[in-house]
């Protein structure tokens, strides 16, 4: 667990992030730094704003106040001198190209095979040659154990297989940062394990990951840091063995007790 680079610049740095949908304030001032190579698991009850926060990091949602920096660039904006201006959609698209994302509903492209899904962004967005992209895609498919499904369409795969292909698709752009938005919540219970195993492999390889999930077991085994969110705020964070075993905040204790009772 000494992978955490405690010095140097953080890869992700969120400051006082606010976000409202209409009159409903979902994020009420989030501060969070993620160091390169760190695996951060965000836990919290439904409606705590954890998914919204994740979606703000690659600007799928625009924030109302505060700032988010990824790899030294402010997401969605540019500061020139004293003047902060919104970026064009094209420039925002360029910023997203270093961030991989995995969705709860997989969101694979249903009209493309697994292989086509994986090479779509490397070829079409990053301008890699088809051959290089295919070679790397086959390497990724081998890593997730789905080489023989390269030419299968998403509909022909089980939910767990689809999500593993979606992870490979996100990895294919060689991202600096991976975002996981409840990657196992839409899966049948018996298929959760294979996806978590894939994610644990990645965590062990020094990839920077922010994972929003309900899987306490994954947090315990793979996280460098657990962040607990409630009511649009970070209420507690720390090493998993500390936060999960000995939560200091009453909300964390309540949330965890519910899961531990379920597990028992």
């Amino acid at each position, binding site marked *: 667990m000494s992978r955490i680079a405690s010095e140097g610049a953080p890869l992700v740095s969120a400051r006082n992030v606010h976000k409202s949908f209409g009159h409903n304030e979902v994020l009420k001032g989030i501060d969070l730094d993620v160091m390169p190579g760190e695996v951060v698991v965000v836990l919290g009850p439904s409606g705590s704003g954890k998914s919204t926060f994740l979606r703000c990091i690659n600007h799928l949602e625009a924030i109302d106040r505060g700032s988010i920096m990824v790899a030294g660039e402010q997401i969605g904006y540019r500061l020139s001198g004293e003047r902060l201006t919104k970026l064009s959609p094209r420039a925002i698209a360029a910023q997203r190209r270093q961030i991989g994302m995995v969705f709860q509903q997989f969101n694979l492209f249903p009209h493309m095979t697994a292989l086509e899904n994986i090479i779509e962004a490397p070829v079409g967005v990053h301008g890699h040659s088809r051959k290089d992209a295919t070679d790397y895609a086959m390497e990724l498919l081998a890593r997730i154990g789905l080489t023989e499904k390269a030419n299968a*369409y998403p509909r022909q795969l089980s939910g767990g297989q689809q999500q593993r292909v979606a992870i490979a698709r996100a990895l294919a752009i060689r991202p600096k940062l991976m975002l996981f938005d409840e990657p196992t919540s839409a899966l049948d219970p018996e298929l959760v394990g294979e996806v978590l195993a894939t994610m644990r492999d990645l965590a062990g390889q020094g990839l920077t990951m922010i994972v929003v999930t309900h899987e306490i077991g994954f947090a315990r085994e793979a996280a460098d840091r657990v962040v607990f969110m409630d009511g649009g705020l970070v209420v507690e964070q720390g090493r998993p063995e500390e936060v999960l075993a000995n939560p200091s905040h009453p909300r964390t204790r309540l949330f965890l007790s519910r899961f531990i009772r379920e597990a028992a």
Partner: protein
Amino acid sequence: MSSAAEPMHDRQATLRDVANAHRPVEWGRWLLWAFVLAVSANFAWIVAWNPNFGWPVVAQWFTAESILRGLYVTLGLTVVAMVIGVIIGLLLAIARLSDDRLFSGLAGLFIWFFRGTPLLVQLIFWYNLSTLFPEISISIPFGPTLVSWHTNDLITPMTAAIAGLSLNEAAYMAEIIRGGLLSVDKGQTEASDAFGMTRARALRRVIIPQAMRSIVPPTGNQLISMIKATSLVSVIAMADLLYSVQAVYNRTFEVVPMLMVAVIWYLIITTVLNIGQGFIERYYARGERGATERMPVIAEATP
């Protein structure tokens, strides 16, 4: 005791195996078939031997040069107007769905006007554009003129027909395409965004291919209406299929046989288009449940 009962039991199981079941004899359905066939055969017989249809005249004119020329005009006009209509319709649909108030407002105005007025009136207006605007010029608003044309040099029956048909078609296609784009799951746009695709690329590679499944069937419908809508251009002296048969029966007074020539040609075109539509629909259904192109892999829930 049990040894005697078991073969009996087996025999029962064999008899009850649904794989060996017979179809019940459906006398009612046979009777209905016989009745419908008899009535249709009789109707066909009556039509075939009715001298008023003038079948020899139909046969004589069916592949006449003037009719075939009219047929080419109808086909050409349909293809050109449809292609322009689909392209403008796509741009309108994208503009209509954009967050930009200016674009979506302009697209809405276009669709409102061209769907809200009869095609026949639009065609006549295009044809008589010169009475409204004797000259068409490109200039800086309220400033100097850069280029200018006489409207009568630009508007021939052909250009009036193409303009009228394609702009009207664009308005309808815009709504069909917009519906198709909206039918695609929002997660697809999000995934495209998350991968840093530009809006144009996301539309071209991800959204439109999936929208095609719901765009193709109504577009086939539009194409078939378009073939028949081209017959309206006969009012602005455009020599399409209908105009060509009219030109003949105005001389020979064989109205019904000549109309039968046109009807049969329209039916032939429509039939060919229906078959083509089936192929296109199957192509865009790939990746869907039941489609087994490329690789018949069935999902197996591996642990």
